[in-house]
Structure formats: structure tokens, C-alpha cells
């Protein structure tokens, strides 16, 4: 048998050593589970799955506190999970007597959601904290598990302050809200179940502003037949501040 030339053997030897060294190093350096499920350490998936849970979910609360959960489920706060206000509950579930979850009782917490912020969606109940019973704790009037107004608000501005302040500076200042919005008395205690009406057509504004309307002399008049006949009035005039709208009254 013919042997390999000497120079080839001398080359092969270091190659074999290097390759074997790399293979051994790879065995030690690359984690065992790397590449089993893709270009990553498969064990990491299990580690990610088994991280500890802090927020246990409302069902865990209902297991013991079913009365409060039931009460809340029928209230305006039905969408607000227990842990929103009381914080993560895992420690409390593990040892109920030793770890009591906090209950925010001061004035600082409720305004996180309910203080007035112009960026918040219209219709979300908001108060101006500096004028809304300053110094009083929210829970002295409102039950957080079933929040309703403590007594029927006497004026619309108690809740719709933004509109009330706008109307204050407009020619409609003396027009009571109920002239345009027929408001069932229940609306004051149950605002979303009983919704006030809104005017439906041009003729409603025409009752005061049409040429032949039976109203005070100083009220501006328009000819209902020629003045913007294809539109309803509030497309150009904001009824709570009718004069200053940019596009109107050219």
C-alpha cells in the first residue's frame, strides 16, 4: 500500500487536531438544547413559561370574595378588575391572612382614572379634583364596588362641567339645558341607562330662529328655506357656543 506523501500527512495532522478541538469546544460551549426548535436555546422557552405570576385574575378573588365580586359585576365598575385598585394578588392568594392587599382609601387614587383630562374620550366620567369636594376622601361619598352619585346632582354642570362652562360664555347662557335635551329624572342617578334626547332636525332650532318664530325680538333670525337648507344647524353652529364657530355665519 502506498503511503501518503509526507508533506500531506504533516498538513492533515494539525487539521485533524484543530477540527477535533473545535468539535470538543462546541460540545462544551453550545448549550445542549440549542437548535432543537430553531436557532435558539430550547430550554429558554420553558424558562419563559415558568416565570412567576403576580396578577392572579378576578376568578381567584371570586373564590373567596364572591359577594363583593357579584356586587361589582352589576355596577359601573364591572369592567374594572379587582387588581386594578388592590394591586397584584398572588401573595394574598398564597397566604391570605399574612399578606393583605392594599385598598386605596385616600383622594389620590380614584383621580388616576376620573380626573378631568381633555385627551380622555368624551363621556367617560371625570371630575375636576380642585373643585369637586376638595379634601374629602372619594369613598366617603362613593362606594368603589358600586359607584353611583351619592345624591342626584341638582345641576347638569355637576357632571357636564365642560359644556356648562362653554355655554356660560355663549348667547345661549340663559337657555336651560332641558330646553333642547329632554332629560328623564332617572338620568341623574343612572346616567347611561336613561339618556337625554338631542334635537333631531332643523325645525327644532327654527322654533326660535325661523323668520316666523314666536320668540323674543333680539334672537337672530334666518330664512329656513334658503339658509343652509341641505344641512342640520349643528353642522356649522355648535349649539353650546353658537356664535364663534369658524365656518358659520359668513
Amino acid at each position: 500500500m502506498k503511503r501518503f506523501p509526507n508533506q500531506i500527512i504533516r498538513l492533515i495532522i494539525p487539521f485533524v487536531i484543530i477540527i477535533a478541538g473545535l468539535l470538543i469546544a462546541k460540545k462544551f460551549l453550545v448549550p445542549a438544547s440549542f437548535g432543537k426548535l430553531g436557532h435558539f436555546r430550547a430550554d429558554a422557552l420553558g424558562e419563559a413559561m415558568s416565570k412567576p405570576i403576580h396578577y392572579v385574575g378576578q376568578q381567584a378573588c371570586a373564590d373567596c370574595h364572591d359577594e363583593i365580586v357579584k356586587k361589582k359585576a352589576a355596577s359601573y365598575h364591572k369592567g374594572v378588575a379587582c387588581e386594578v385598585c388592590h394591586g397584584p394578588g398572588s401573595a394574598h392568594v398564597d397566604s391570605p391572612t399574612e399578606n393583605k392587599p392594599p385598598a386605596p382609601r385616600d383622594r389620590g387614587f380614584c383621580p388616576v382614572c376620573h380626573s378631568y383630562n381633555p385627551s380622555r374620550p368624551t363621556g367617560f366620567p371625570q371630575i375636576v379634583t380642585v373643585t369637586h369636594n376638595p379634601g374629602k376622601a372619594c369613598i366617603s361619598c362613593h362606594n368603589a364596588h358600586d359607584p353611583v352619585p351619592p345624591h342626584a346632582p341638582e345641576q347638569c354642570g355637576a357632571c357636564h362641567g365642560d359644556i356648562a362652562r362653554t355655554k356660560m360664555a355663549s348667547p345661549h347662557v340663559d337657555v336651560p339645558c332641558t330646553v333642547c335635551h329632554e332629560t328623564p329624572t332617572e338620568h341623574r342617578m343612572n346616567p347611561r341607562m336613561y339618556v337625554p334626547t338631542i334635537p333631531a332636525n332643523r325645525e327644532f332650532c327654527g322654533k326660535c330662529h325661523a323668520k316666523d318664530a314666536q320668540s323674543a325680538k333680539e334672537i337672530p333670525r334666518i330664512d329656513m328655506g334658503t339658509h343652509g337648507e341641505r344641512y342640520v344647524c349643528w353642522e356649522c353652529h355648535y349649539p353650546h357656543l353658537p356664535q364663534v364657530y369658524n365656518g358659520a355665519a359668513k
Partner: protein
Amino acid sequence: MKISENLSRREFMTRILDFAKKALIALPFVSGFGAVKAFTGGAFLKTAEAKELVAYDPSQHLYAMGVYIDRCIGCGMCARACKKENNVPQEPFYFRTWVERYQILKEDKTIVDSPNGGIDGFPETTNKADVLRSFFVPKLCNQCKNPPCVQVCPVGATYKTKDGVILIDDKYCIGCRYCIQACPYGARYLNPVTKTADKCTFCYHRVVKGMKPACVEVCPTQARVFGDLKSESSPMVRLERMNKIRVLKPDLNTEPKVYYVDLDGEVS
């Protein structure tokens, strides 16, 4: 192998060869040991939860989140809960999820801010009369179908699971920050404690057990919705069917799995 000064070249090569021979013989044993380690390593869970998780099949799920912009009140409960659930540092620079306020002014200008991620509320910064419209946009990792962050990771420490979630292996991450640079949504940060990259995982440890992510759990107005796109009864399927939805930066072809309902064109 002891190397003395008066070692001849022949003897040196012989010894090297001898070592290589032994190493080659040892190789199958070493790899066999590795296989055993991998097998036992597979039994990573020793708790009662282990059985449930073994039954969990990631290929049967595809997770996604939906956000109703019109419902978000900017209370920041999601950002708070996320920090508590996932041990995110409390300093105001590290977020897995945060809330941005958009204020579009009458003079053709948009102000976007997120003081402490929205956790401490949004103080008024502009005159209300100058604002045309304003709203909140919760943000988080978009769990892209084509994730740029996974592509750039040099060591394979960030990866996509079969159920569509992008995760980070914090034991394998070398903290090079490539992925933080690559993310077009700014969703990643470098954890100052572990010195590894970190981001939203859709609360993977919760969703594999059938729970909602912490931010969805605490959202008081149900602005955030979470679900499985492969399940017909999922709230996400309903959200996709009933609404006009948009994703962030669709032109990048990352194909995010966070869907926004009624998102303003100004948001990017």
C-alpha cells in the same frame, strides 16, 4: 501533557497526536453526556404546572392584541401592572408597555409625550383651545410576523415561538443592543440589572396557562383585548371582523400582531 524545554520536535508531535487520538475516542462519550444532559434538561419544570404545560401545544395558537383607541383613558394602569408582573425597573426609562398622548394642534403640529410612560398621569401641557384633537395610544412590542430584532441577534438569544410571540433568552443574551437598534417601534430596552435586552413577551408565562396578559387584565375600560387568532371564539377574531384596524408602520412589512382600532393617521 507536560512540555519540557528539551522536548524534541518528534516527541512534541507524538504527544500532540496522542492527545488528539484520546480526544477523538472521548468525543462520543462527551456527546453522549451532552445528550443525557439535554434529556434531563428537558424536564425543566418540577411543579404541578408542568403537566399542564406539557399538554400545551404552541402550534395550535397564534396570539395577538387589539387596542381600542377610543376607549383608552390614559390611566397608565397597564404600564404599572406590567412593571409589577415582569419585574421591570421602576425608573422612568424602562418600559415593556407605555401610553403615549397625541395632541394634534390647530396650527399643523403634533405633540407626542409620555411622561413616565403614563404611570403618573398626563399633566396639561398645552392650551386646550389650541388643540384640534387629542387621544391616547398604548404601545408595546408588536410581536411582528417578520421581526427585525430576531434577524439581527448575533447569538440567537431572541427568537420567535410557534405561537407567534417574540421572546428573549436572558441567559444567552450578550447585551450587544443590536436588537434595540433594529426595533422600529422602540419596544426594547436594556435592563440595567441583568444587562440584557428586554421587552414585552405578551406575558408568555400567563398566556400559556390560559390567562390574559397583565395589562389586559387590569385595563379598566377594556381598551386592550387579547386573544388567539386560531380560535374562532377569541375576542381578537371578533375585533378583527367588526372594526377598521390599522397596525403601526405597515410600510416596513414587519406585519405586527398588535392591531389598533380607529387609529389616527398621525400615529406612527
